[in-house]
């Protein structure tokens, strides 16, 4: 039975939590505001008592898959466990109820949190300068490409193109276009890495930047990253690390040593802050010294024991967030880092890589790996073999839902046919990986014995497959649309 909407539950006259009565003499809205500025008809918000609202959202919540329930092996999304202490410290009133424009002398605790987080992240990345203003990875990309434009502009020519490998996330080309550059796509070679010869041909004095995901979205470390950096820097272009796959490098490899000019971090991936059903994320952008003057304003500084926001940054690209970024997410990430410490951080990528390789080994006979050999923290399988039995990657993912597990990322990267992109993360145990592998192996047998069962999956979920074409053809995006039929 589908859950009713709030509109269905509304009963005229029901009320939720109340305010204290007005403790001053009331003037009346009509005396305080001109009549023509006042709503004649109140917003049609629901009228529901608190217990019913709580039940409604609890009943909705249990329809979700989530990381506290079972494995969530979405490639390039890094769905690792979100420690509970993170959320607890973020609720502390001194942090949660602080106003962003209260005087700096009364904000030193919040600023100290940001400062300390910056120190940890600079050490992990091996890069000298940092901002935590961007709200998410895509905004880091945008900030960096704006900075690249400003950097080249100062040298007399903002340039025209940004190079993006064909295995890149969609945010890369989309960002490039939004900053007014032309996207130049370079292909991957047979080994899954950037085709170096093609890259040499693609770069020129027009190239403003090159955006690289490392390891790439096939889960393969770009071993020629040194050469890639030389090629980019050889024409004066800047090298950007899309940090979506940073969970393969924490405490293991150093983006700074790889000569990246920019590197972004998704705190909601690598550093355990919750994904929240789509956000908020936490974006961090690390840059080399020469790019520091272009960082978004304001910049956090420390003088003696006092922190201050420096707004006087004439070469900055400007402000990218209403205040200072997703502060509550920064608090959680710092809490995670302090929990792990140096020894715990050393384990993150090592165990994530072990888990990915173990899963790949268990699955490689039934599913075609996109590339042979060891992978980093994730790997891509192709369901081409299963497709010949009439079952697509999409169906395999849906069938996994019947096993109480989440599907991998499907149909990405675009360069692999029927792609299943799997990232288990370090917080899954061997038993959990075995259960997942057993499920995918059982499903492979089903594709032989009863392919229709897989094609019709899922059947044990709150709803079955949904008609997406109908949703797009005649969009019903509000209660009013539903009522209008």
């Amino acid at each position: 039975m589908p859950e009713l909407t709030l509109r269905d539950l509304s009963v005229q006259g029901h009320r939720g939590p109340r305010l204290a009565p007005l403790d001053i003499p009331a003037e009346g809205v009509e005396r305080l505001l001109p009549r023509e500025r006042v709503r004649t008809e109140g917003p049609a918000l629901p009228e529901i008592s608190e217990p019913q609202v709580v039940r409604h959202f609890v009943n909705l919540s249990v329809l979700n898959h989530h990381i506290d329930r079972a494995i969530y092996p979405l490639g390039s999304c890094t769905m690792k466990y979100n420690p509970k202490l993170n959320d607890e410290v973020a609720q502390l009133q001194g942090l949660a109820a602080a106003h962003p424009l209260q005087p700096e002398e009364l904000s030193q605790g919040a600023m100290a949190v940001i400062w300390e987080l910056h120190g940890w992240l600079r050490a992990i990345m091996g890069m000298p300068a940092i901002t935590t203003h961007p709200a998410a990875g895509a905004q880091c990309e945008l900030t960096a490409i704006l900075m690249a434009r400003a950097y080249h502009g100062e040298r007399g020519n903002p340039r025209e193109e940004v190079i993006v490998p064909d295995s890149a996330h969609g945010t890369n080309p989309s960002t490039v276009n939004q900053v007014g550059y032309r996207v130049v796509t370079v292909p991957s070679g047979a080994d899954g890495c950037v085709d170096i010869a093609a890259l040499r041909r693609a770069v020129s004095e027009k190239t403003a930047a090159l955006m690289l995901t490392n390891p790439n979205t096939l889960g393969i470390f770009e071993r020629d990253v040194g050469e890639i950096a030389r090629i980019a820097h050889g024409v004066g272009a800047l090298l950007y690390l899309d940090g979506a796959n940073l969970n393969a490098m924490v405490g293991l490899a150093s983006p700074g040593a790889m000569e990246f000019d920019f590197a972004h971090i998704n705190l909601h991936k690598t550093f355990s802050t919750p994904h929240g059903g789509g956000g908020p994320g936490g974006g961090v952008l690390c840059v080399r010294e020469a790019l520091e003057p272009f960082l978004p304003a304001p910049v956090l500084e420390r003088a003696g024991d006092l922190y201050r926001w420096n707004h006087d940054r004439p070469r900055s690209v400007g402000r990218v967030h209403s205040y200072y970024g997703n502060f509550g997410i920064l608090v959680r990430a710092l809490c995670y880092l302090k929990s792990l410490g140096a020894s715990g951080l050393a384990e993150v990528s090592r165990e994530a890589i072990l888990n990915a390789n173990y899963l790949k080994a268990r699955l490689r006979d039934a599913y075609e790996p996109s590339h042979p050999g060891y992978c980093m923290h994730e790997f891509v399988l192709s369901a081409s073999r299963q497709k010949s039995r009439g079952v697509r990657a999409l169906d395999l993912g849906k069938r996994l839902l019947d096993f109480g597990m989440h599907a991998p990322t499907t149909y990405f990267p675009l360069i692999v046919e029927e792609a299943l992109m799997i990232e288990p993360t370090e917080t899954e145990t061997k038993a959990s990986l075995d259960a997942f592998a057993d499920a995918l192996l059982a499903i492979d047998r089903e594709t032989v014995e009863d392919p229709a069962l897989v094609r019709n999956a899922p059947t044990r979920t709150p709803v079955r497959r949904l008609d997406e074409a109908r949703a797009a053809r005649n969009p019903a995006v509000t209660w009013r649309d539903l009522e209008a039929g």
Partner: protein
Amino acid sequence: MSFVGRSDAERRAMLECIGAKSIEELWGAIPADLMVRGALPVDPPLAEYEIARRFAEWGERNADANRYACFLGAGIYDHFIPAALRSLTARSEFATAYTPYQPEVSQGTLQAIFEYQSMICELTGMEVANASLYDGATACVEAAHLAAGATGRRIVLVSGGVHPHFREVLRTYASAGSFRVQEIPAERGATSAAAARKLLTPEVAALLWSQPSFEGIVEDGAALTDAAQGAGALSVAAADPVALALLKPPGHEGADIVVGEGQSMGVPMGYGGPLVGFFATRKSQIRRLPGRLAGATVDLDARRGYVLTLQTREQHIRRERATSNICTNQGLMALANAIHLALLGAGGMREVATQCLEKAHYLARRVSALPGVTLPHGDAPFFREFVIRLPGAASDFVRAAQAKRILAGVPLARFDRSRPRDLLVAVTEKRTREEMDGYVETLAEWSRGRAGSPLEEAACRS
């Protein structure tokens, strides 16, 4: 601390299955000179109670709205947040889920987004709202992009009544060249429709205004929308959702896009983040909408269900031709908005807005009766925020009030150095008569002797 559950025996068994002799073999592809040598130069791990203590100490070094009477606004407000909201948004099922790309196991998130979209449309008077954006500032940027695309024009005319930080973010994004920002100076804290009309040339894609304005003034939205549309530009309002419980929503006055900051609907001030931007427009613009959108449909058994729809607008499908580069949004904050609106409901939201209005006017009346204190915007209608002009530097009064545990307001010199005596004061439903009377007393004491004395023109940046 470690969140890895692994015994040595398990590790050996896993390596054996892989066929690797050692774990190091697995990352042999990383060139040796790119490896981190030894341990990272960071601190050793701390136990939970050590960490909790450290963060508590940091918290105590901040002022917060529980230990201070908070009269700060300027886009972020200290509103009532029901306990039930905190309990619901903290649930693992909502907080630790990913973007609902597998709708069969994401109906909770998807229906919540659908209800959020519905209620944003009710508040703004619009027809379609997306699943959220980063914040109010970037929502304005997305509106600028939509308007430029829809009109084929490049100038975004921005009222000086729009939040100065929103204007700054617009200028940052405009440096990419897809639109150009031109400003209309505010007149007495609001937008002059006559001034706007003069600048509304055929190159203007949109007129961006704010309801209420940054300095609290209730704008004449109908006049601004008429001016914009009369020149073939879109009318874009950056609106406060609490105000919309009481004020005529821009959608009812014909606006094309209504965006804004949703923090005031159940999101903690949190030192300015995470926030949540909302974006609402007409159905006719649905294919230009930025970000995610939930839509209702049916499953194979004809049961109602929800999916992310019209995804061909988005970056993961359309890549460089997407309507926006946004991927991760502020989903959990949009959920908080939805729960907040459900808990407070039509009556509760109207009561919050009415109490803000009444209390703001009470305080404005009382402080402006003090010698030397004036309201520079005179009798212009305002909502929950207003500017007072003091007989001395506003930042000086802010410091004096701190000693009484009052956060007295945001000195406007922060945004405009030519206004050292102006203070922006916000009053929410949470402020009590006692706190407001204490404010008046503190200001009276501080003003005494200052009224009429020469003004110290000190730099007033707080």
